[in-house]
C-alpha cells in the first residue's frame, strides 16, 4: 500500500458538528458538505490499494451491540483507508453479559485511548446518551428503529451520482417504515435536500401522522410507482415486530414486492435501491435486484466513501 493524498474541499467554519447522531438535526448545507467530501474520497474508497494518512494516530472503535456485517465492515474499511487504527467490540465476549451497563462499557473503551466510537444498538437514543457521557466522537451506526445516518447519506450520494441532483426528485421509501432507521434518516435527509418523499407500505407499518412532517403517505405501490424517480425497498424487520403487522409474507409480496411485472409501471430510468440485507422474494425479486435499474452494489461502494467523509470531518481535523 502506498500513502496518497486527496484533494479535499475546504471545510467551512460553519461546520461545528462533534458527533453524527442523526440527520434530523443536520442542515442541508452540512449534509451536502458530507456528500461533497465523500465524492472526493470515492476513488480511494473503491480502490483497495490506496491508503491515506489523514487519520493516522487515531483509534476508531466499533461498538456494535447489535449484529451487523455490512455496516461494521464498511466503517472498518473507511477508518483503515484513512490510516486510523480500528478495534472491534462485540457484546457477546464482553462484560455486558456480566451486568455492566453500556455506559460503563463505553467509558472503559474511552479510557483505553479511543478517539471515535461507532455505535450500533437496538435502543433508540443510545448514541445520544453515549455522546453525553463520554468524551469521544460518537457516530451512530443505527439505533434501533430511530436513525441510521450514514445509510441515508450513502443512499443520497448514490442518487446524486446517478441523477446529478436530489432536489425535485420523487423518492419512495417502501415497506416497514415503522421499524426502519433507514427510513427515518432518509426522510429527513431527502426532505432537506429538496426531494418529494413518499412513504409506501401496509397501513400497519406506515403511520398517517407522517403527513404532518411534510411527506406523502400511500398504501398503494402500484399507484405511486409511475411518479417515482427512485424506489428504496426497506427490509421487513421481522425481529422487531411483536405481532406480525400483515397476514402473510405472501400477501405482503403481492402488494409491495418489486418484481419485473410491477417494474413495467415505472419510468424507464427508475432507480431501484435497497439498504440490505434484503429478503429476496419479499421486498424485491432477484431479477430486479440484479437487473439494470438496481444500484444496490453502488450503494455499498458509496458506503465506504461516506463513512470516510464522516470520520474525516469529525475526527480528521482535530487530530491533524
Amino acid at each position, binding site marked *: 500500500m502506498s500513502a496518497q493524498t486527496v484533494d479535499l474541499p475546504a471545510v467551512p467554519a460553519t461546520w461545528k458538528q462533534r458527533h453524527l447522531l442523526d440527520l*434530523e438535526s443536520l442542515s442541508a448545507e452540512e449534509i451536502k458538505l458530507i456528500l461533497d467530501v465523500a465524492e472526493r474520497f470515492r476513488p480511494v474508497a473503491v480502490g483497495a490499494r490506496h491508503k491515506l494518512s489523514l487519520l493516522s494516530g487515531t483509534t476508531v472503535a466499533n461498538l456494535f451491540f447489535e449484529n451487523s456485517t455490512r455496516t461494521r465492515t464498511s466503517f472498518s474499511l473507511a477508518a483503515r483507508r484513512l490510516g486510523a487504527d480500528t478495534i472491534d467490540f462485540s457484546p457477546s465476549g464482553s462484560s455486558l453479559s456480566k451486568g455492566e*451497563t*453500556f*455506559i460503563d462499557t463505553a467509558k472503559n473503551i474511552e479510557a483505553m485511548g479511543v478517539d471515535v466510537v461507532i455505535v450500533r*444498538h*437496538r*435502543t*433508540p*437514543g*443510545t448514541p*445520544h*446518551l453515549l455522546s453525553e457521557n463520554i468524551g469521544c466522537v460518537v457516530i451512530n451506526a443505527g*439505533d*434501533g*428503529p*430511530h*436513525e441510521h445516518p450514514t445509510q441515508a447519506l450513502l443512499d443520497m450520494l448514490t442518487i446524486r451520482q446517478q441523477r446529478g441532483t436530489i432536489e425535485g426528485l420523487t423518492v419512495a421509501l417502501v415497506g416497514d417504515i415503522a*421499524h426502519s*432507521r433507514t427510513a*427515518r434518516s432518509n426522510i429527513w435527509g431527502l426532505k432537506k435536500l429538496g426531494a418529494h418523499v413518499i412513504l409506501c407500505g401496509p397501513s400497519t407499518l406506515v*403511520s398517517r*401522522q*407522517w403527513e*404532518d*412532517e411534510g411527506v406523502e403517505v400511500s398504501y398503494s405501490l402500484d399507484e405511486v410507482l409511475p411518479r417515482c424517480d427512485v424506489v428504496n425497498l426497506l427490509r421487513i424487520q421481522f425481529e422487531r415486530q*411483536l405481532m406480525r403487522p400483515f397476514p402473510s409474507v405472501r400477501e405482503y409480496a403481492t402488494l409491495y414486492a418489486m418484481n419485473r411485472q410491477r417494474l413495467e409501471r415505472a419510468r424507464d430510468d427508475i432507480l431501484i435501491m435497497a439498504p440490505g440485507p434484503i429478503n429476496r422474494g419479499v421486498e424485491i425479486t432477484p431479477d430486479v435486484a440484479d437487473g439494470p435499474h438496481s444500484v444496490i452494489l453502488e450503494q455499498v461502494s458509496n458506503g465506504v466513501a461516506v463513512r470516510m467523509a464522516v470520520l474525516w470531518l469529525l475526527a480528521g481535523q482535530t487530530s491533524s
Partner: protein
Amino acid sequence: MTSRLLIRGGRVIDPSQKIDRVTNLLIEDGRIAALDADPEVDARVIDATGKIVSPGLIDMHVHLREPGREEDETIATGTAAAVAGGFTSVACIPNTEPPIDTQASVEFIQHQAARADQANVFVTACVSKNREGKELAEIGQLVEAGAVAFTDDGSPIYNPELMRRAFEYCSMFDVPVLNHAEVLELTTGGVMHEGRVSMILGLPGMPSEAEDVMVSRDLRLAEATGGRLHVMHISTAGAVEQVRRAKARGVRVTTEICPHHFTLTDDSLRRFDSNFKMSPPLRAQSDVEACIEGLRDGTIDVICTDHAPHAREKKMQELDRAPFGIVGLETALGLVITHLIRPGILDWPTALAKMTIHPARILGIDKGTLNVGADADVTVIDPDVRWTVDPAKFRSKSSNTPFAGWELTGRADTVIVRGEVKFVAQ
C-alpha cells in the same frame, strides 16, 4: 405538662372548613386546640407571617419500596422525603416484595413507619393474593389490620371478573379500589406515549387508548356494582372525559393526577433520558391541556406523586431497559404552586383541597383538616421562596427526577406531624 405550639400570623387555609384568613393556630398536646388563638398565649411560637398554613398534605400514591427493594427506598427515607416535601401523611402502595397482602405485612409497614417517626403512613393492600390478579386477598382481615384502600398497582387489575368481585366485596367495608388503568396488550414493549414524537424517535409507543379502554371497563363495572373506583394517575384526555361523564351520572368514582402529567409532554423524551420514562407515560400537549381542565373543573379530585424511586444503576440504562417511574415527594408542592397556583389555574384553597381533605375522604382517614380536636398535622408553606431542584439534596434514597435544575417558587417551610416539628426548611 401541656406542650403548646402557636403558629402565628399565617394565612390559614383549611378547605375542609372553608377557612381562608390570616390568623393564629394553636396546637396543644399533638392536637389542634384553637383557631384565632390569642397571639400572646404561653406557647412555643412559629412565626408564619407571609406564609400559608395548611392542613398537613397527604400523598395517596407513594411507593416506599420496603420490604424488598431497600436499595431504592426505605420507609424511613421515603417518609423523610415526604415531610421535606410538605407531606404529613402518605399512603403506600403494596407492590413490594413480598407484596402487602396479609395482616402481618400491613403491621410490618406500620411498625417500620412508627420506628421512622416521620410522616404518617397509611397502608393500601393488594386486591389479589400475592398481587397475582387471580383471587381476592383477605380484604376483610386487611381492613381490620388498618388497610385503607385496595390496589394491585404496579399492574392493572386485569381479569374483569376479579375487578367486579373486588368492587362488590370492598363495598362491604366501604373501601375504594384503586386501579392502574392499562390494557397491557396495547402497551407491550412500550417506552413512551404513542404519537408524533414516538414515531419520529422510533421508540415503541403506549397509546392513550390503553388507558381509555381500561378506564371505560372500570367505570362500567363500578356503576354496575355500586363499588368505589379510584382511577390512579390519570393522564389522557379520553380518561378525564369519561370520569367527568361518569361523575355526572352518579358513578362512585374519583381520580388523581401526578405533577409530571400536567407539567411535561412526550416531547421531553427527545433527550432519551430515562428520568422521563414512567407509566402512564408523558402524554401529548392536548392531553396535558385536558388534564388541566379536569383539575380546574373538579373532575380530578387529587394531586398525588406516584413517587417511584429507583436506584441510579437501574435508571442509568438504555430507555427500554430502565424501569418505569420517577420520585415526586420533594418536588410536588413546588410544581403545584409554580404551575397551577401562580398562573391562576387553581386558587390556593382548591389546590390544597386536592392535597388534603380530598385524599383523606377517599381513603376514609381522619386527616386533612384543622378542625379543633384533629391530629395536629400542619404544613406551613412559604409561597414565595424561589429554589432550584437539586436531586443531590433529596432525602429520598433515589434521585430519578425529570425536574433536576427546574426553578420553582414555593415549598414547605415547616412541617408538623401530630404536634411535632418534623421538618424546617434550611
